[in-house]
């Protein structure tokens, strides 16, 4: 009979757009499995769900998955999105580059280990010889609070998750540097998917076909969203876009983050990992500092 794939998702997460498209268009059945969604209100809950065996797949960033794998968990990673953040400033801010943020206050949503923040630190160091962490003041906070305090001008610049960034840009904030610009300047492969679906190897061993069929379904959904405007209309209610500007910004940024088909560039990933280790330290990458083998699922 058809295997059931239970996905633990953040109810507000963008991954719902893709999974909903899969269900709506029957891409799961077409690929021989049934997809069910378990929505949670917090990312941590999705981790607990998969770890505890209450769900089979979740979305996580690959660095985290790498560290967990290095620590002995049998997680594997299937690319979902390359979307990265950027740092934004108010429209009328005098800042033109990271160097101008010296002595300013930056609001950061993901905490001190946020990937975007680490890449920007590396970039500032390389471009301007500047220690961004030391020469600015950081305010960490929940994404909505960072969103609000940036709009209110309480902070001089902000780094937020990408769907909040889309709204901030729609509200008139200006992108100072995009993280993809920064990573290119650092010689990183911009196609490395930062977010991905995470399965347990033990689960995949019991359901050998699931990985491939899930990947196919995901690709079908992405293709449809990339080619068919009307597919988006179905998603609009769940996108929480108040204006057309916001809606289009979200759509654009989403499509920009669709990874290329095909296997992940593992050397590029290793370089990336090394860089993160330099800036994020052991906390972020675990005590090995080496990308654990077998992390990226082989589907083609």
């Amino acid at each position, binding site marked *: 009979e058809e295997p059931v794939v239970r996905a633990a998702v953040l*109810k507000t997460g963008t991954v719902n757009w893709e999974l909903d498209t899969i269900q709506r268009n029957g891409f799961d059945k077409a690929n021989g499995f049934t997809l069910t969604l378990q929505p949670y*209100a917090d990312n*941590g809950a999705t981790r607990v769900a998969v770890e505890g065996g209450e769900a089979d797949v979740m979305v996580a960033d690959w660095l985290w998955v790498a560290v967990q794998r290095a620590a002995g968990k049998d997680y594997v990673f299937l690319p979902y999105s390359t979307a990265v953040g950027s740092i934004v400033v108010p429209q009328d801010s005098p800042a033109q580059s990271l160097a101008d943020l010296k002595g300013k206050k930056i609001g950061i949503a993901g905490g001190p280990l946020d990937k975007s923040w680490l890449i920007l630190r590396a970039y500032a160091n390389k471009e301007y010889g500047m220690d961004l962490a030391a020469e600015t003041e950081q305010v960490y906070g*929940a994404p*909505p609070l960072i969103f609000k305090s940036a709009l209110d001008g309480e902070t001089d610049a902000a780094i937020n998750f990408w769907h909040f960034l889309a709204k901030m840009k729609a509200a008139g904030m200006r992108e100072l540097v995009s993280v993809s610009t920064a990573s290119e300047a650092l010689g990183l492969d911009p196609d490395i998917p930062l977010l991905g679906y995470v399965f347990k190897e033990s689960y995949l061993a019991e359901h050998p076909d699931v990985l491939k069929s899930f990947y196919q379904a995901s690709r079908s959904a992405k293709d449809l969203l990339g080619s068919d405007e009307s597919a988006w209309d179905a998603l609009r209610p769940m996108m929480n876009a108040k204006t057309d500007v916001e809606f289009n910004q979200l759509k654009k940024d989403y499509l920009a983050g669709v990874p290329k088909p095909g296997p992940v560039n593992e050397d590029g990933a290793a370089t990336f990992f090394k860089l993160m280790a330099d800036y994020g330290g052991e906390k972020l990458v675990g005590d090995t500092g080496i990308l654990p083998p077998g992390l990226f699922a082989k589907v083609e």
Partner: protein
Amino acid sequence: MQNPSARFLSLLCLAGLWIAASALRGDPSVLPSPLALAEPFWRELTDGPLLFHLGMTTWRVVLSFALAMAIGTALGLMMGTRPGLDKWLDPWLVVFLNLPALVLIVLCYLWIGLNETAAIAAVVLNKIPNVATLVREGARTLSPDLKAMATVYRMRRIPYLRHVVLPQMGPVLTGAARSGIAVIWKIVLVVEFLGRSNGIGFQIHLYFQLFDVPMVLVYAFSFIALMLLIEALFLQPSERRVTAWRRA
């Protein structure tokens, strides 16, 4: 309240203050006026899932409350009346009292599984030490004279607990119950957003992530309204009955 209208007027004042504040602030996305909440509230109530989520949360609150109060009271009574036991259990109480809700909840979910049992267990474990602490203090002040009286007249255990101990613990218990239900509901919120797919906590966190302050308030206040009702219809009348002797 002998006078329900005072209750009502007082709530109106609060709403008035709120309206004034929101007019002063002038940013409905951050401080919407209560009037602006009426429409989304009505929509969620009639068309939306509010009742379903409220039901789930209430059920969790009621169950955990009953369990936590029962176990916590028993534990507190024992610890308050038996110094020998207290000496041994007290450090445990301190540990569990100060274990962060987040930690306890995550551990419960990890150990028991991401299910209803774990959710309830997490809330109950969170709350028991709290109740036990309060009840223990109350039990320490039980009148030795009444105890002597009950001993002499060979009162049995159940009538003794019911008519001698319980009334003395009354204020502590109502205090513990009232603040307890509030704390429990707050923990249930956390439990829900950390690992349940329904309930007010789930919805509040959801709308918080969407930065929809009005909806956050709609859900928060739906439970508060329920509590105001329960206060007015059950807690206060029963408290009034139980403490009648004080005012007589």
